[in-house]
């Protein structure tokens, strides 16, 4: 009995030691890789989602070869985690981060990012103006974020069931489609979409009372409030819903699953999101970070990114122009990239709460 207890104790101690050793090595890899390399080999620390382009063969490895450096990825699983990473010791270690359009302002407000010297970016002049000029990315005349890829939450429908030519958000309010509508369960999208339908001058600052009335009508037409791909795919496949707002990715998924789908940009314009590169404050290697941002928006990378298995819309105009018709159709930018895109911005705390309250009231009524 005693013997076996001793063995057990020894085993646990050994296991614990091994665990600490492992975690220790993975923690220090960031620093180790910098010093262990040849003299002069630099390291760049990139914070991004796992499997999102930058760690593909045409991403980091290509960049490493080009600039004789090492790229280390730190993965996050939510935008909040990305910010927390910097706040809890990442500052001074991480060079570049990838905030979503709704998170740039937050990162700026919390002092996590620094201005980007766009005069040193060779590809910046070729980037799409809609995204380049996004207000949250340019604060006080300085650029804090460079666009990388984007998508929309636009109007999609099943042409087998919806026979009319759909050109406007007003179709969602059409009694003809009552009970056939799927709508995104997200307060910001809901209010911006309704503001577009109402032709409010600034969809980010709409008349909330008017929006509320219209949303109440929309709700009566709505069958499903979705919040994931799967939420949409199931009822769409069963023909329970036939029209509604959806992500670009949802339209792609539906096409892949052999369902007929049309994905359009309504005349009033559409809602867009973008992922942007920002350079972290106190980045260890600012120059290399600039080169990374330039490479990520360059023709070589953007072409590969837009034509891979999981295609993403490019921001580089030269790349977009060279895409074939089929490639453009896959990205839902055929015949042309939507011109009227309203990009989701960060909302201040009060607006955020007011908008959520409107949306919750609608859902509760």
């Amino acid at each position, binding site marked *: 009995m005693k013997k076996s207890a001793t063995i057990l104790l020894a085993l646990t101690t050994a296991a614990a030691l091994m665990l600490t050793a492992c975690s220790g090595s993975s923690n220090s890899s960031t620093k180790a890789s910098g010093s262990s390399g040849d003299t002069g080999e630099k390291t760049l620390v990139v914070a991004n989602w796992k499997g999102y382009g930058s760690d593909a063969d045409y991403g980091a490895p290509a960049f490493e070869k080009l600039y004789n450096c090492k790229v280390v990825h730190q993965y996050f699983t939510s935008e909040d985690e990305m*910010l927390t990473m910097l706040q809890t010791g990442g500052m001074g270690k991480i060079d570049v981060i990838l905030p979503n359009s709704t998170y740039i302002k937050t990162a700026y407000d919390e002092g996590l990012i620094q201005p980007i010297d766009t005069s040193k970016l060779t590809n910046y002049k070729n980037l799409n103006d809609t995204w380049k000029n996004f207000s949250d990315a340019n604060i006080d005349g300085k650029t804090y974020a460079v666009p990388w890829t984007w998508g929309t939450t636009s109007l999609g429908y099943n042409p087998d069931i919806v026979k009319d030519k759909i050109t406007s958000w007003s179709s969602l309010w059409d009694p003809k489609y009552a009970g056939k509508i799927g709508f995104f369960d997200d307060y910001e999208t809901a209010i911006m979409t309704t503001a577009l339908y109402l032709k409010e001058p600034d969809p980010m600052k709409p008349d909330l009372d008017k929006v509320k009335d219209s949303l109440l009508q929309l709700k009566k037409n709505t069958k499903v409030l979705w919040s994931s791909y799967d939420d949409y795919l199931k009822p769409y496949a069963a023909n329970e819903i036939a029209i509604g707002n959806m992500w670009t990715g949802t339209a792609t998924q539906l096409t892949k699953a052999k369902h007929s789908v049309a994905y359009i940009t309504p005349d009033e314009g559409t809602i867009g999101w973008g992922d942007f590169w920002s350079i972290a404050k106190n980045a260890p290697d600012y120059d290399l970070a600039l080169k990374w941002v330039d490479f990520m928006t360059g023709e070589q990378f953007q072409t590969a990114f837009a034509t891979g298995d999981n295609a993403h819309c490019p921001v580089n105009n030269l790349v977009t122009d060279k895409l074939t018709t089929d490639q453009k159709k896959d990205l839902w930018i055929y015949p042309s990239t939507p011109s009227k895109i309203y990009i989701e911005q960060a909302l201040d705390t009060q607006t955020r709460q007011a908008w959520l309250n409107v949306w919750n009231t609608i859902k509760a009524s």
Partner: protein
Amino acid sequence: MPNSDKKITRGSLLVAPSSLLLLCFSVIPLFMLIFFSFINGNIGPDGSIAGYTTNNFTMIFSDSTFTKLMFKSLGIGIVVTLICVIIAYPAAWGIAKIAKAKNHNLLIMLVIIPFFTSQILLIYSIMVILQAKGLLMSLLGFLKLADPATSILYSNVAVIIVLIYEYLPYMILCIYNSIEKIDDNLIYASHSLGAGWFKTFVNVVFPMSMPGLLSGIMLVLVPVTGSFVEPGLVGGSNGMMVGSLINSQFSTVLNMGYGAAISFVFLIIISIIMGIVRVLMSRANRSIGGA
């Protein structure tokens, strides 16, 4: 006498670990919830608090959203609990008294098996059965009873069905536990004294199964009233419940103070209702003249 004293001291020592557990995971969190319901907004990344306010509570009752959702959620909770009780009594009776003793464990096992599967999978599997062109609708369509391209998914009825499916096992187990303890001789005695099935149930079985029923109601009513995953997935545009309102404060606008305040009010309302249930049941028990 000194001997029994010793036993008591030892007993209280043995209780220490579980008391500590209760303190750490029940009492302290409860006070944290009350504390956070008075903070302004969210706590900062460095743990800082922006200020204290009672606004969170005035905001809850500033419009009818919370009240409406609270009533609706309680309604759903009560309906689900009642249906669970109605289904669970015969099931528990069957397992405890009709089935052969050697089969009890097997039958209880069958009731427990759904617990081995994740809740989200249970919901999705019910959705597959209920959805348009799914198993149920195809069958009804084949029998010319309904159009297979429609379904009852994305409605409050669907939410109730899913919740019953999820929580029925708790009710069966609780009631089974109480019924199993009832001495068969009491039932024989009741019959031999001329009571029919109904009278026996009302005067003997029901009063004696009251403790199990009460814990069953507690285990079903409380989580069902606070649920937010099921209404989100199968409730459609009218699915929202009070749990979804709380969830949205934490997950979409990061307003921890307001979310905690709603949770706190919810906790108070639910506690009052459980208190009422307890009083009603002990009254019923007394008027029946049971134990």
